[in-house]
Each structure stands twice: as C-alpha cells, then as structure tokens.
C-alpha cells in the first residue's frame, strides 16, 4: 500500500535523476500545472529546460463539498516538462511507473489519443491519455503551440493525477480514504477544505467583487507588460484567470459573456508569451549552448542586468 506522499517522493526522485529542476508549486491559484510559469513560459523560445514539480490545481466548478468520493475542487498534479522532448520520452515515462512500484508485466498499459487544448492560453498539443487497467492515470502531451506561438523545440509534458493514481494503486473506494502518510488519511488533511471552498465558490463568493478583481488584474497585467515586467504581468494574468473560474463556478457567467472573458484572458497570455520570448532573447537565451547561440545569432548580455 502506497501513501500519497510516497508517490510524490518517488516521482521527484525519479525525475530529479533525469536532470529535472525540482521546482516548487506556484504560490498562486491555478487550474493546472501547465499554467506554472516554469511550464507555460519556459516551453517558449529555443532554450532547453527540464523541470518537475507538484502543483495544487484548483477547479472551483469541480468542487463537490467533500461529498463525492471521486471529485475534488482542488487536486494535485505532478508535472514534468522535458524540452526538447527526447526520443525515448515514452520509455522514460514507463520507467517512472516502474519506479513508483508498478510491475507492468501484470498490468494493461495503453496510450489512447487525447489532444490537449487550452484556448485561454492560446495553447494546444498532441498526445494521449495513458490508460492503466482501464483508468486514465496520466496526460501525455507534445506541446505544439503556446501563447499563440509555434514552438521549436517541442516540449513533452507529463501530468500525473496524484490523487487518482494513489487511489487506483490502492483500489480505494474514496479519495478521502487514501493515506497521505501512514495513519493520516487524505480526508483528515483536506476534506474540510473541500467543503469550505465549495461553499465559498458556489454560494458565498461576491460576484461584484470578483468582477472588479477580473478587471483590476487585467489592467494591472497590462501595466506590468508596458513596464517590461513579464513575470509579474503573467502572475496578474493568472489571477485574472482564477477570478474568471470562480465567477463561472458561481454561475455568474452567461454564454455570451463567457466568450468575451475568455478572449480577454487569452489576449493577456499571448501578450505575456511574446514579451517573455523577447525578454529571454534580450538576455541572450542564457540556457543555450554557445554553439546554439551562435547558430541563432544572439549574444549574452551582462547576466546581472
């Protein structure tokens, strides 16, 4: 029987050995690990990058007051980015499953087509949902575009759903029954939070306040971008996106409004992506090797600027 945190530890250990930066979760509300700047921004431009981290992911509309044994308003993703995608990335992924204790000669592992698209990020990719014994345990994507930009090199994104994976490995009947650490069930750590967050997102959140938040963070993001501050600008865009998700869960977004709001978030994401690539180029794409830099015709400015 494997605990929730053992799973995290084993995945971290495995991917650290593959040369990934073990990053920490973004300290802002996001809907998925993809929105972490170490994924969304780092996949842009020519520089190589390998990173792995846990990202608590909030999807207010998926909340079920802690009543539903399979659904959460906030779950945890283990996110891996390998850029460029190595030719053996699929084999590495399979080895990571063995690392968490799966004997694949006893299981049925299949990769079924599942393409990913995030309109609010101007991003899409091609890939699979990975099915283990009929259960989706991982989303595997080759990013093709992000922030409206064509990507080169291509990044492979591997996203493990940690709760589902733990639950499945132990065949638990409820998320709340899995053990976070031996003796402490997940429910003891998170159930009250699920209940209170559902209560807030569905019933209490102040619509007028959230709408003003959306407008405010959008304006703030633009001010940042105008001042050439890409990273704070992107954080403001993420806050905007979260305000939208809460409004949506609150039932305060009509069909026609929805399209407009999503476009506003997308415009910010596209703006950030463009500004980020420019900023990295100005710094001379410091993660590139000297030869690669020369091939692109860029030079490194003073790194301390």
């Amino acid at each position, binding site marked *: 029987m494997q605990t929730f945190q053992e799973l995290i530890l084993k995945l971290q250990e495995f991917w650290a050995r593959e040369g990934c930066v073990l990053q920490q979760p973004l300290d802002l509300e996001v809907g998925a690990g993809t929105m972490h700047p170490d994924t969304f921004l780092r996949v842009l431009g020519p520089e190589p990058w390998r990173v792995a981290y846990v990202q608590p992911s909030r999807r207010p509309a998926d909340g079920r007051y802690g009543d*539903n044994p399979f659904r959460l308003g906030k779950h945890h993703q283990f996110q891996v980015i390998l850029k460029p995608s190595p*030719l053996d990335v699929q084999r590495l992924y*399979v080895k990571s499953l063995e690392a968490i204790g799966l004997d694949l*000669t006893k299981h*049925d592992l299949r990769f079924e087509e599942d*393409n990913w698209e995030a309109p609010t990020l101007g991003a899409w990719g091609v890939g699979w949902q990975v099915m*283990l*014994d*009929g259960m989706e345990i991982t989303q595997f994507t080759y990013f093709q575009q992000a922030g409206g930009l064509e990507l080169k090199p*291509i990044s492979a994104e591997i996203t493990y759903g940690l709760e589902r994976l733990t639950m499945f490995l132990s065949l638990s009947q409820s998320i709340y029954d899995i053990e976070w650490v031996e003796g402490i069930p997940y429910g003891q750590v998170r159930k009250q939070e699920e209940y209170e967050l559902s209560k807030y997102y569905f019933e209490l959140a102040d619509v007028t306040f959230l709408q003003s938040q959306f407008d405010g963070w959008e304006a703030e993001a633009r001010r940042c971008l105008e001042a050439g501050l890409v990273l704070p600008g992107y954080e403001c865009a993420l806050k905007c996106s979260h305000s939208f998700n809460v409004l949506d869960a609150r039932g305060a977004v009509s069909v026609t409004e929805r399209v407009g709001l999503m476009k506003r978030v997308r415009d910010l994401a596209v703006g950030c992506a463009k500004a980020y690539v420019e900023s990295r180029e100005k710094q001379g794409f410091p993660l590139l090797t000297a030869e690669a830099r020369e091939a692109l015709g860029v030079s490194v400015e003073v790194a301390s600027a």
Partner: protein
Amino acid sequence: MPKGEYLLEVRSEEIPARMLEPGVKELATRVFEELMARGIGPREVETGYTPRRLVMILSGLPEREADREEQVMGPPVRAAFAADGAPTPALLGFAKRTGLEPDQLARVKTDKGEYLAATKKIEGRATREVLGEIVPRVLAGISWAKMMRWGSGEGPWVRPVHGVVSLLDGEIVPFDLFGIAAGAETEGHPTLSPEPFRVADVADYKRLLAERNVEVRPAERRRVLHDTMRSRAEALGGTLVDDPALLDKLTAICEIPGVMEGRFGDAFLELPAEVLSTSLRDHQSALTVADAEGGLLPCFLTVMDRPDDPAGRARSGNEWVVAARLADARFFYGEDRKAGLAHRAEQLQRLNFQEKLGSYAIKTERIVALSAFLCDQLGLKAERLHAAEAARLLKVDLATEMVKEFTSLQGVMGGIYAREEGHSEDVWQAVYDQYLPASADDPIPRGKVGQIMGLADRMDTLVGIFGLGLIPTGSKDPFGLRRAAQAVVRIALEGGLPLDLEAVATEAARLYGDRLTRSAEKILDDLRPFLYDRIRYILGLEGFAYDEIEAGLAVGVANLPDLRARVDALHKVREEAAFLSVVLAAKRIANIVKDAAEQPIDESLFVEPAEKDLAAAFEGLRAEVEEAASAGDYERCLRLIAGLAPVLDRFFVEVLVMAEDENVRRNRLALLQAIGKTASRTAKLSEVVVDKAEARAKAG
C-alpha cells in the same frame, strides 16, 4: 531466384485509432501506384497495423524496370545538310551530343517537316533503388488527420518514429525517415516482449512477431475479439450486444487481442439500460451483455493489450473505474428525477439554440405551434393533444444532468424521464425517438407523434438557419443541416406522410416572426434545391435510376409519398415497348412545343386523318388518365398514355406540324401541348433517358 518480396514496417509511438486504417491505405495505394507507373508493380499487396506499427508487404516484384528507348529530336533535315549534301555544324553538334555518327541518326516525319532524331537507350533501375526513393517520400507525405512535431522540430508526422524495417528479399533497402535509418531490426510487444530482434524476411517477420505477442492483421484481431466476446457473453448466460464501431476502435488500440471481462454491482441495474451501455461505451470502451428478457447482465467486455490477466489487475482496475463511473451516473439520474422535467423546462430559457434564433424555450413554443400545423395538414385529430404534450417536453432533457454528461443520450433520457413521470406511450416514445434517424441505418420514429416531432423540430431548424443565410457549403455544415434534411425526407417517405413541405417551411418561417433576416420566398429558393438533393439521394438508395427521379421531380412535388409513387410507376413501365415509343414522342413533343403559347384545341381546324385520329384517341383518354392519377394509380396513367403510341407515331409520319397555314399549325401545336401535359401527369417523360440503339431496334 529472388522472390521479389518487400517488407516495410514503421514503428512509432501510438497512432490514434481513427487514423490507422486510412494511413496504411494511403501508404499502400501510393506506393503501388508509383511502382505501377514505372512498370514494376507487385503481384500482391498486403497491409497490416497495430497502434505502434504500420506494415506493408509487397510480393512478386520484378527485379528491375525494363530498359527503354527514348527518342531525342535533332535539327530538321533541311538544316542538317548543306547544298552539297555535306553535314552542317548543326548536325555535327547534335551527333556529338548524342554520341552517334551522323549516319546512325534516324529521320522522323513530324507536322513541321522531317527531322533527324537519335534513339537513346535508358537502362531500367533496380527495384531496390526505386523502393529506396519512393517509400520514404510516400511515408513522409501521408496526409494524417492531425500531425505533430517532436524533439528539435522533427516531423510533421502523426507521432514520433522509432524504427523502420525495410527488406527486399532479406536485404536492407536503405533510407532515412526523420533521422531514423531503415534496417532489419524491430521489437515485439512493448511490455511483454520488449527486446529488439532481427528479421530475415517476410516469413520470419510474421513468425517472430506472433511469438512476441503482436498480431499485425487487424481483421484477425477483430475476429478474435468478436469471437471471444461472444463466447464469454454466452458463458455468462447472455448474448453480446454488438457494436461494430466500438469493435473497430478496440481492434485499433491493441497489438494483441485480449478480452477483459468485468462485473459491476447488481445495484447499478436500477439505471436504465441505455444509461448503462452509454456510460460503459463512452467511458470504458466496453460492450454489454443482454439477458433473455432484453435487460442487461451486470457485466461488461472490453479489450486489454495482453493475452491474459494473471494477477487479475486489469480486471480489478477496470471494475474499479466502472464502479466510479456508474456511481456518477446514478448520482445524475437521482438528481434529475428529484428535480423533475417541469423544473428543468424552466432552465431552457437559459439554453441557447442559436444566438439569433433565441433559446430552447422559444424554440419549444415554435415546435408546439408547428406540430399543430402538421397535424392539421395531415388531418390527424386524435394525435393533436399528444403532439402538443410531446412538443412541450421535447427539448427539456437538454437541461438534465444526464444529458450534460452524455450528450449522445439526448432525446432518449427525456423519453425515459417522461415515461417515469407517467406520460402516455405516444408521448414518451415521441420524445425518445426525436433524433431518429441519426444515420442511414437508423429507423424513423416509431409512432405518428414521434414522426411529427422529428419533422417539426428539423423543419424549424432548417428554416431558421437558412433564414439567417447560413446555408451549408462544401464540407462546412456546423448545424448538421444535410442530415436534418435527409431525416425529413426519410420520415415523410417512410412514414407515408403526404405533407406539402413548402407549406410547412412557409409556416415555420412565419413562426419565427422578425428573427429571420430573409423572407420565406428567399428561404424556399435555397431550401427547395437543398431538399431535392436529399430526395435524389434517398430515392437513389432505394434503387431508382437517376432519370426516373429527375422525371418525377421535374413536374413538381406535391408531397413525397406521391412523388415516390410516380417515380415507382415510371420505374415499372419504362421497359415496356409501347412506353418507349411514348417517351420518344414526348421528347419530340417537348422540342416542338418548347416556345409555343398555350391555347385551346379547335377540332374544326384538323385536316389530316392522322391528326383527327390522334385527337379522338386523346380525347377518349384524357379523363381516364386524370381519374387514374387522382386515385394515385400512376402505372395505369402511364399505360394509358402508352396506348397512344401507335396513333402518335402515325401522326408524326403523316402530319407536318409546322404547316404553312398559321391556324392549322397553332392548332396542331395546341393538340401536342395538351397531350404533353397529360402525359406529364406522372413524370416529365422527356427526361427519361433512352438508349438510342435500343430505341432504333424497337422502332424496327
């Protein structure tokens, strides 16, 4: 002696199920065509695939292209020799270029005069060389439905490529595909037999793969899956509920056809069978097992990419997921029943049908009114109340949790909830069947009320979208209007509903009030040909010939059952000899009276006996034809007309229509016009295509 056997295997990461079949077909077809064009086509082409490999085997390939000769044109003869017969520099230059002596050149006559020409021998290339050039080009050029790039930008292709086996009679045909060199090495099943191994030739390849848990022939995987599932279902005491499309998918997501059998809790059997099988199909790609009473057993069958399940993990995993999914479905079902359809109906106001055409609540009002109109048109009195009741419930399930989760259950869920809430059979079945027929294999709705609903809903949609000018073009048909129009045609035809669809469309347009941007007349101008195209298609499927349908359509469509009766009559009598003469006569009449103004017949103006006889014969016939037509006996109509054949033939032989006397001429035209009109009571006979040779033979 070499066998001329070529083996190609491309290993890649998992190719999407829907793309495998078209991908491998395109590969084989294009390679075959290119080889044929070079005169080195194979005797046999065999293809196969699994999610991780595309396979093509060519056998009976010739060793090399034939040598051929090519003629190279030189200077004209007049410029080749000087006046004294000596070769000119032009001739000498050409001879030098082609490496021949001047006297070895041939003389060739062309339109522009006589020319000198050299015959060049071109040696045919070895098939091996040609394959090495064609195969990588065709592979890289396969038009996958969705492509990707990987790594530092390799591609585009469907998925990253990992290995290529390319062997002609055991020897490597080298080439490079996205940086992967073709060779003789492959791998077996990725988790069960992952070790790489070398392949000697085709026979070796087949044997070694079979030992390594891979079956590359999809038809064989499908057969094994189907047979195993059927026998498992029988062992469970039931019968497999067939689902060919799902079986195709399962075939395309495994390398080895293992069947996974699982069970779910009996308690879930309280869910309607439709919900169980939809959840199992959509979420778990699983088939169900029916019991003797038509209910379901608490079992499911799906694929696993392995021959057995020694630790029972595949089974316990699938059962765990299914239990979670069905628990979700049960939750939605409970919520919906608690809320009730009346409560959901209020939510239709917030559900957009189409931005400019308003909500589903407003659409519901229109369907209520339009279905009443349809009942009146058809003289259905008893059904009127039930139609109104069904129309009010028709779209309500779009607001239920179950349909939000499983859109494919729209209609079905509404029908089930309506049944549970005690609505009559007429009503719940009408709601249940409203989206039928969704495909060519589907039947039309069971009852009259259901047929009315199917027509009212779709005519409202067609007129609404056409009324905004959003007419489908090419492959673009976001509202599924072609399918909707096809369903309208089928329901009217197969339901035997004598409806004037143009009147229905006009009423539908009126019900939209000022929401539409175009007038009813404009809508009809576009909708009529659109519907006619579906009618041609459907009647064509029923086995009627193109010209029979055109002849039927050409005289207008009062209603569809009538149209079919007319086309059918034409189909039955067209081969009769007398009828053939009438068709020929009709064509002649159509040509002659094309531009003539209509006018009454004046018997006193007839001169020739042949025209008097014709007029008399026709007069005797006219009322009878009309009577038969009114009674819908179109065969009799056509046979009556055919009876005119001898007198008509005689008329055309003995009478000159274009007489000098204008009154006589006009009167003859008037007679022919009247005959033409009566003959067209069933179909425009001049549209019927006649085999000229056959016609001559019959005319003697």
